[in-house]
């Protein structure tokens, strides 16, 4: 029996004020998963990465709902208000993909548009290529889908040092560096972030155990061909080459984790994609330019609904 820890789901008023959505829960592969499900219409699935949660999309949800879409934003198992497995070996890229695939299956989602950033990319795109008939469109933002690391992920300073053996548990779990500092360093509009968003990210990572996945996810990024996740990332890249799902590539102009070359690599993988379109934004571009990104997504979806123009 796996040990589990859980978080209270009551959000403080100062956080709920920015995140006024009903919290829903579903049992996925034995784990409790939290998600938001608002509106009616064709479903749009919003996928976050490390160390955020559905709060990241708080400004997307009302905008897309008002435009006539059903908007679904889950928290990956291990993040946000979802359950936090207590063992590092509980986590793998394959398990995260399986969790998301099961989530989509249980909700019976069809005609999906998936919007993904960071780890939302490998997980969401994998679900799309596993079940292409369920997906109408994909929107990729500041992510990757191949086994080769970026320059940022290859360097010892700061990335590999951060999660090195023994160093990782100290920095990520005892000092919570990704929430307390990493997020701040990875947005453009920092004062707004500190005032409006940091309390919500901090709230769901209150203690050592709750931060486990923040240090496990970095170790799942393959650096060498035989690393964990590498085979799955190779499969994902190969599968994406043959996908015909309409796609939009959106990228942050200030992104350094997945630099501009990554956007171009997606364009090579998905030559039919619209973009790349560039918005003001560092790694967490949803914090920087939510309205501009929503406008691009809605324009793209409206173009898809209208079909090919003469």
């Amino acid at each position, binding site marked *: 029996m796996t040990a589990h820890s859980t978080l209270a789901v009551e959000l403080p008023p100062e956080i709920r004020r920015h995140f006024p959505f009903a919290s829903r829960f579903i049992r996925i592969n034995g784990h409790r998963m939290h998600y938001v499900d608002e509106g009616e219409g064709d479903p749009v699935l919003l996928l976050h990465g490390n160390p955020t949660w559905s709060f990241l999309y708080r400004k997307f949800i009302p905008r897309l709902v008002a435009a006539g879409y059903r908007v679904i934003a889950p928290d990956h198992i291990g993040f946000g208000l979802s359950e936090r497995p207590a063992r590092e070996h509980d986590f793998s890229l394959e398990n995260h993909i399986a969790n998301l695939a099961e989530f989509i299956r249980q909700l019976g989602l069809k005609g999906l548009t998936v919007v993904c950033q960071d780890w939302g990319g490998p997980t969401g795109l994998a679900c799309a290529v596993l079940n292409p008939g369920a997906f109408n469109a994909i929107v990729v933002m500041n992510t990757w889908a191949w086994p080769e690391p970026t320059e940022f992920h290859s360097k010892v*300073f700061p990335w590999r040092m951060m999660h090195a*053996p023994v160093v990782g*548990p*100290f920095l990520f779990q005892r000092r919570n560096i990704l929430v307390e500092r990493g997020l701040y360093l990875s947005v453009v509009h920092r004062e707004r972030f500190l005032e409006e968003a940091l309390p919500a990210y901090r709230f769901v990572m209150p203690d050592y155990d709750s931060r486990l996945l923040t240090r496990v996810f970095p170790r799942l990024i393959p650096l060498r061909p035989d690393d964990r996740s590498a085979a799955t990332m190779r499969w994902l890249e190969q599968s994406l080459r043959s996908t015909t799902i309409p796609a939009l590539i959106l990228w942050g102009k200030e992104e350094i984790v997945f630099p501009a070359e990554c956007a171009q690599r997606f364009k090579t993988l998905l030559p039919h994609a619209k973009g790349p379109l560039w918005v003001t934004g560092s790694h967490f571009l949803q914090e920087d330019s939510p309205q501009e990104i929503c406008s691009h997504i809605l324009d793209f979806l409206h173009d898809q609904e209208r079909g090919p123009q003469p």
Partner: protein
Amino acid sequence: MSVEIIAAAGLRTEKHRRVFVMAEDRLGHYDGFRETLIEAFGLTAAHADGGPPGYFRAASRREYEVVFTSRSGQRFPSGLEIYALVPGFDPVDPDATDEDIWRFLEWLIPRVGEEWTLEALKATGKVYKIPWA
């Protein structure tokens, strides 16, 4: 010396309790860390089969127990757990503990060597506002 590896005989464990500090499940994630700890703590095959834990004393004079763990399919030690040895029912000062662990990392990283440098650790600590970096 910021960190001193100590033998069990030199410990003040009487009337001390063990307080969990942190755990590392994948010492082998990057090369060199496991080997460095094997050498520093004098680990042998016997340690994987009920042998004693290791201990270190920080410059603060506080002492820590290092429990080396094993896992099927991986070389020993596959991981470690660090416990603070706290006198009696005294409270734990998390910041003081963190400073000791940071000093332990400063001791460890240059011993791993090659690309793992003290400068890189300190630079990382500064970026992420670790007070002792």
